[in-house]
């Protein structure tokens, strides 16, 4: 509706907006450009760095898979079924965004720690959460599942319920309708949820550091190097992980867009 050639308001607003864009872009660019390619390559050859990055990616991927299996049905219910307490469930899904990360770590430690019931139960099958990969996974799962569930829910909501109704009249059971109609049509929302959750998992530090300082994920490694050796030693690792995050984020976003067009 607004005319194509920019009005004074648009110009004025664009200046304000640019400050914010600049505030995001500059620190990242500054970090990326401060380390030479040679230094980055050397950093990547460091076993500690490489292992930590692989551990981060893998843990976040596993957390995302768990959320996919458990969260997809929940997202569908929230989008489609009217039930008492739906607003409460939606609020609960948002809570992990609000809880301070270190407090979330404490809370998870109390439930999954060595002396807790669940911790003891899992140790019977050889799974330990403290200072181990399963701890990293549940910390990532806790802080990032909101992103997946909300995005998948919005994806399902955008599917016209009449399409599901018509499929029923054409002989599909509710379970078939879910896979034939709802899932493929909500796919863009689901995919964007997967991307956001996985990326958010990568970025977690506070909750993970309380459950598992070791084995070290990349954000913990950055922190440790910064505390022990200072900015100059932390920077190459930070640069590397920023570059990888951006690369993955941009790739997935482009894939997600192509998928739709």
């Amino acid at each position: 509706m607004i005319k194509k050639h920019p009005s004074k308001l648009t110009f004025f607003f664009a200046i304000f907006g640019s400050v914010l864009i600049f505030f995001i872009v500059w620190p990242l660019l500054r970090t990326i450009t401060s380390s030479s390619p040679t230094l980055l390559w050397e950093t990547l050859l460091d076993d500690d760095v490489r292992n930590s990055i692989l551990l981060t990616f893998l843990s976040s991927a596993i957390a995302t898979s768990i959320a996919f299996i458990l969260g997809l049905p929940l997202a569908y219910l929230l989008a489609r079924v009217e039930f008492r307490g739906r607003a409460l469930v939606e609020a609960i899904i948002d809570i992990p965004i609000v809880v301070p990360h270190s407090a979330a770590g404490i809370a998870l430690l109390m439930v999954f720690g060595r002396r807790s019931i669940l911790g003891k139960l899992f140790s019977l099958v050889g799974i330990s959460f403290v200072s181990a990969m399963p701890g990293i996974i549940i910390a990532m799962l806790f802080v990032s599942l909101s992103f997946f569930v909300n995005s998948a829910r919005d994806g399902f909501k955008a599917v016209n319920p009449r399409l599901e109704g018509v499929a029923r009249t054409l002989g599909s059971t509710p379970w078939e309708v879910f896979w034939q109609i709802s899932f493929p049509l909500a796919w863009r929302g689901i995919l964007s949820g997967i991307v956001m959750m996985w990326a958010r998992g990568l970025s977690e530090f506070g909750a993970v550091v309380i459950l598992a300082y070791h084995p070290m994920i990349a954000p913990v490694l950055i922190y440790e190097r910064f505390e022990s050796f200072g900015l100059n030693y932390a920077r190459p690792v930070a640069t590397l992980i920023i570059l990888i995050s951006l690369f993955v984020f941009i790739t997935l976003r482009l894939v997600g867009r192509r998928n739709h067009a």
Partner: protein
Amino acid sequence: MLKTPRLKLEKIALRLGDFQFKNINLEVAAGEYFVLLGPTGSGKTLLLESMVGLKTPQEGKIFVDGQDMTHLPSEKRKIGFVYQDYALFPHLTVEENIAFGRKNRHRSRIQRLLPFFNILPDLDKDALIAAEVKKISRLLKIEALAKRYPANLSGGEKQRVALARALIVNPNLLLLDEPLSALDPERREGLQNELRRIHQKTGMTTIHVTHDFEEAVALGDRIAIIHQGEILQVGSPEDVFRRPASKFIARFVGVRNIFQTEIIKSTSNGTKLLALNGLMITALTSLTKPAHFSIRPEDIILSREKLTSSIRNSFQGKITTIANRGTLIYITIEVSSSQKQKPPIPFIVAITHRSLEELDLRINDEINLSFKASAVHVF
């Protein structure tokens, strides 16, 4: 109806939000083209959705061919449904849309449990389904669209695809929810004829919902008038048009001259006299108590001279408005009451452009209007 009706609704009641149905009873015979006619918001879509099982009525029963289906899930009812917006699956081609329901029938138990793996394609069955898709596409003249996606179709094409998708599973009953209202007015007529042709060709029992009276008259074997969750009248188009059961229906089907009267007396030749502000109008009716009566605007004849024919009702009046409505012209004529203190009575008369020219009518002209006793509908 002596035979078991194809569809029977028995005392259906349904409440949803502000809206409710009360005690809906309806029977539709096999092969019939049945039209549900009512204004927007009269709950027509909701009633269709409860027939098809997408909404469950709180009370009452739904029978198809005498079998109680009230609690059967939608996928087992074999009732085809075409929504107003056609609800084509946007991620499937026209071909895949049409084959959708047909494929469901051939799926094994394990395929139904794991619908996300398309395992074990069966080439024989695929060929069979492809042939059926082709056949129904030919009937609906959409063979050329097979590989296209719904987003690239026109309204009329979408409608044909939605019809094909519903018809391919050979349902017991086909429900159409305002199938023409999403189309441009200039294309509506063609698709209306198309619906008639398909009905004649397939003999499919059809329930068609609309708010457009002309559409209902043109297509329906029978019409049910629905308003505020109640069925007010069921009958042939002629019935509803000529003998509306209430003032609401009369207005809705476009009758303009609706009056209230006391029935004064019977005459020797079996007609009755109705009093209207001092005018005496001759009508044929068995009613004896005060009632409404109406005269359709196109049933009134205008003439410069007083007609000396067998027509019983003839009055003189003055033209007050002439409204051009395209095909017809609506003229308001005020007939003075014989009792001086009463206000004049406005009659609305519909004539063609040709008649207007021939009679050379102008505002304030005095003119004679006449109508037969049989044109007066008392209710």
